[in-house]
């Protein structure tokens, strides 16, 4: 086909679609919504899964997080009632891991205490984190100003602290926090640094508060973390916690809430979990710890995403299929309505192929126009979802290409039969058609 006859065919197609504006528009809607839903669904799915994956990745794919878990009641009742229950991770655990497993790159014990921080007449609920300088290697915190805790702080049990920026904002407002003293539980701690948790840490937060909930110290109203040296925390805060609830009194002692272990590479993560399980299983007679492997969560998230994509993709594919059938239906009606025109064209020298090209290009024009409209709408919807629904969405270029490709394929697939029907009509019969 010469370029001018292609141009003529397109012109003719546009013309005859324009003649039936309402019909063409309604026909196109099926494809518009199909393509639009493909893009919107993929964008929302991609956004949700990327958010989850980012959150998990921020926990560190080479990290293993051992958490203290309150053992179930059955196990607890086997001990004597009304005595102090002692469970969870201990300094001995951390020491044993460091001494017996050489492939551990970094090991960071973490103590978490719910406290209030005060400055002048201001007061905020915080989570006090007692830890060591290497905390920054296993946790997604970024230093904004000053410094993080040092080994000197640790060694001399100094009353220094590092606060998170939202704590700094609440507590100090327009004052410079560096060098100021924050009062926590009657003691003063000098602020040596300000850190920020990495962007989008919302899920990491909820993850942390989930762990906190498991630990039995709900993180309600906590606006951020304050880090102090672990040794200082050990000296100044009791590990014994008394609580009165459900008509009985319970006294618990927990040394460490978390031990974070970092290995060299992701391949070592799963073997390390087995090693840790074996080691801790020897030391602990109760199942009072749990090993969280971000890498595994990441893999699970990837699997979930795959299922999510398949489900969303199928829904979108079905809507495109419905759109395609709608197009075929209308094109068949168009063909029989224009039987006489087909007869005239055939009498004037049009080959079957010319008729096929004419009707196929009409269908293609219709679906491609629908595809483009669908892409525009489909790109708009995730934007609105993000704006009004505060959900992250990600439009990948591949989803645009996919949607456009699908609409072209739908156009060809569902255009072929009507075009073929048109081409194979008997010219004599068609000319007689009223």
């Amino acid at each position: 086909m010469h370029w001018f006859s292609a141009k003529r065919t397109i012109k003719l197609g546009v013309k005859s679609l324009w003649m039936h504006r309402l019909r063409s528009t309604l026909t196109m809607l099926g494809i518009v919504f199909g393509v639009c839903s493909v893009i919107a669904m993929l964008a929302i799915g991609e956004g949700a899964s990327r958010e989850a994956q980012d959150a998990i990745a921020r926990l560190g794919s080479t990290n293993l997080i051992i958490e203290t878990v309150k053992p179930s009641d059955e196990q607890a009742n086997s001990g004597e009632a009304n005595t102090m229950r002692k469970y969870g991770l201990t300094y001995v655990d951390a020491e044993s891991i460091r001494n017996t497993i050489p492939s551990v790159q970094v090991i960071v014990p973490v103590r978490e205490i719910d406290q209030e921080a005060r400055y002048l007449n201001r007061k905020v609920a915080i989570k006090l984190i007692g830890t060591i300088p290497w905390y920054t290697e296993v946790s997604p915190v970024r230093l904004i100003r000053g410094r993080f805790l040092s080994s000197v702080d640790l060694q001399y049990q100094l009353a220094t602290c590092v606060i998170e920026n939202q704590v700094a904002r609440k507590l100090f407002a327009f004052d410079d926090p560096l060098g100021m003293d924050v009062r926590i539980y009657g003691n003063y701690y000098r602020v040596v640094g300000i850190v920020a948790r990495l962007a989008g840490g919302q899920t990491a937060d909820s993850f942390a508060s989930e762990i906190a909930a498991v630990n039995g110290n709900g993180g309600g109203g906590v606006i951020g973390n304050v880090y102090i040296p672990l040794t200082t925390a050990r000296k100044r805060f009791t590990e014994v916690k008394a609580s009165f609830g459900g008509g009985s009194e319970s006294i618990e002692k927990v040394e460490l809430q978390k031990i974070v272990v970092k290995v060299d590479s992701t391949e070592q993560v799963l073997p390390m979990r087995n090693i840790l399980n074996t080691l801790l299983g020897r030391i602990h007679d109760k199942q009072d710890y749990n090993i969280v492997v971000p890498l595994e969560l990441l893999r699970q998230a990837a699997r979930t995403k795959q299922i999510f994509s398949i489900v969303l993709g199928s829904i979108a594919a079905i809507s495109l299929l419905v759109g395609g059938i709608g197009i075929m239906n209308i094109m068949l009606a168009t063909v029989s309505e224009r039987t006489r025109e087909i007869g005239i064209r055939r009498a004037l020298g049009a080959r079957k192929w010319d008729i096929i090209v004419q009707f196929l290009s009409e269908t293609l024009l219709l679906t491609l126009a629908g595809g483009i409209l669908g892409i525009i709408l489909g790109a708009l919807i995730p934007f609105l979802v993000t704006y009004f629904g505060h959900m992250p969405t990600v439009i990948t270029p591949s989803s645009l290409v996919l949607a456009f490709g699908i609409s072209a394929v739908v156009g060809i697939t569902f255009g072929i039969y009507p075009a073929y029907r048109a081409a194979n009509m008997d010219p004599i019969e068609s000319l007689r058609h009223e």
Partner: protein
Amino acid sequence: MAVVHIEKLCKTYQLGPVQLPALRDVDLEIEQGQYIAIMGPSGSGKSTLLNLLGCLDRPTSGRYWLGGKDVSTLDDNHLSLIRGKRIGFIFQSYNLIGQLNVIENIKLPMSYQGFSEERSIERAGKLATMVGLGDRFKHRPRELSGGQQQRVAIARALANDPVIILADEPTGNLDSESGAEILTILDDLHQRGKTLIIVTHDEHIGGRAERTIHLLDGRIERVEYNHRR
């Protein structure tokens, strides 16, 4: 050699188990530039003969040479090509395409022969002027009178300079005045050396042709020669 040469042309329609012969052993020879009328009552095989002459259909048996080429056994693609190049159709109900304007309708046969856009538009313009539609280029068929529409159809039939022009009751839908105008144009084409074959009921039109072929029951009943001219 004659422009149209037909030998023992037969066409039988199969209607379920019944065989319906529409044409039986028709022999016909038409020379370049002749004006032929085909007449006969309905059911006599006029339409069948016209469809065969127009390469819209293939004979059951017999041969048909058009412009020296045997077209009785060609496949659909080649028949389309022959229709476009060698045959000009004029129908009773004009058969223009409603969404195309006068020029676009006239150049339609050229577009299927791969003529360039400029060339076809130029030629379509000339043809439209020739049939007296010089001021109606952009009009749609429904904006034209019946006589004007039939003139567009005549111009369209001439688009590819065909070997024969087939007209099926060209004045059937027209009042006598417009009909007379159309017949004058056809006479004019004959004067210019075109080969015309007209199917009609109208004795008056038949009388204008050089030769009138009367069909009855699928056979040529008699041939009349008019020496009026």
